[in-house]
């Protein structure tokens, strides 16, 4: 993780479950406009819908005959349609990462933020450690895990 530069501004993290419900919401830096918790729920649901639509917008997968020159073995995952991944504005950037099981992580950062992928990957690791391996967490339900909060703080705030 030495690659991550010290100027790291991550505003907030949202986790959306398979059904489009907001299960985790945490702000790291004040910088985003304050939104009510209801607004966050609406944002999560809306994003979930837009994500599903963009996924179905994805062009048809190219068949093997179309790029007949490819010599590598066909992977079943390459052609899987992905939905919206990055949403950028002049003042912030929203990165979305969807796990194989359909859970979505939304990360709000500064537009010039480098290595968002690495940050996301690390957050996913923390999630799979402190949330999925917690016996008191019910899948798809709101995340209330003290150690997850603490490890996220340690990762995001210390690096910034």
């Amino acid at each position: 993780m030495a690659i991550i530069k010290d100027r790291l501004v991550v505003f907030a993290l949202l986790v959306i479950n398979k059904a489009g419900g907001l299960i985790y919401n945490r702000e790291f830096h004040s910088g985003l406009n304050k939104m009510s918790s209801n607004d966050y729920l609406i944002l999560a649901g809306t994003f979930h819908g837009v994500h599903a639509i963009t996924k179905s917008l994805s062009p048809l997968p190219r068949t093997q005959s179309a790029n007949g020159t490819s010599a590598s073995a066909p992977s079943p995952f390459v052609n899987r349609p992905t939905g919206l991944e990055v949403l950028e504005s002049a003042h912030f950037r929203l990165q979305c990462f969807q796990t194989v099981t359909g859970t979505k992580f939304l990360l709000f950062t500064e537009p010039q933020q480098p290595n968002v992928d690495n940050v996301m990957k690390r957050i996913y690791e923390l999630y799979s450690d402190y949330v999925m391996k917690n016996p008191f967490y019910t899948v798809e339900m709101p995340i209330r895990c003290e150690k997850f909060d603490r490890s996220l703080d340690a990762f995001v705030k210390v690096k910034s």
Partner: protein
Amino acid sequence: MNPAPPAHAHAPSLKTPLTTAQQQQQLAAGRNVSPSPGLRYPSNKKTIYDRNLSRSKNAELSRAAFGYLFVEMIGYAQRRVRGVADLEKRLNAQGYPLGLKLLDLLLTRSPLPSTSPSLRPTRILPLLQFITTTLWKHLFGRPADALERSAANADEYMISDNEPLVNTYISVPREMSQLNCAAYVAGVIEGVCDGAGFATRGVSAHWVGEGGGEGGKGMWPGKTVFLIRFADEVLEREEILGKNG
């Protein structure tokens, strides 16, 4: 399509005149390959009983695998359970047989007297040292952080662990804040004590988060103390042994 399929189509008809004896032979062969249910053999035919007992190389396990297994163990213990104390009792009971077995295994592996397996500890202090060093290193890869005798009660000993491995990924919900899943480890300790002939009035795991809950978080928020309460007869014997020795 091809001329091949018709050729194949004849193949089954050739096989049909198999005698019943041949069929039985085939069935018997099949039975040999997969033996009766019960004890299952891995593909290399080496069961856990075929392994050398004193070989401890490559014995490390994946922490994630343990994490998921422990999740299921707690989920299992949580079924039909009333209250935190009951749950801890169940976790304790799950750890107990492990302690009984580990005592024997670790004594067999102990390298000190090279000729025969070392004797089991017969005094309290060697027993506790065995637990905090040998047992802890075997289970968690490091010795326990402290071993103390209670100032108030002579029969109480305390082993502290700053960050129990079993609690690495566990966040206890607020409504169960008294629960410490290291009760499983307490059960292991109880099994070792019992197996060595040191009856206890119970071993329990307690949170002693340093630095207080409200103030700044301590260095070890998950610090746990295992409280061992030996039975009266153990202390009596200890006294007699102390006089003789």
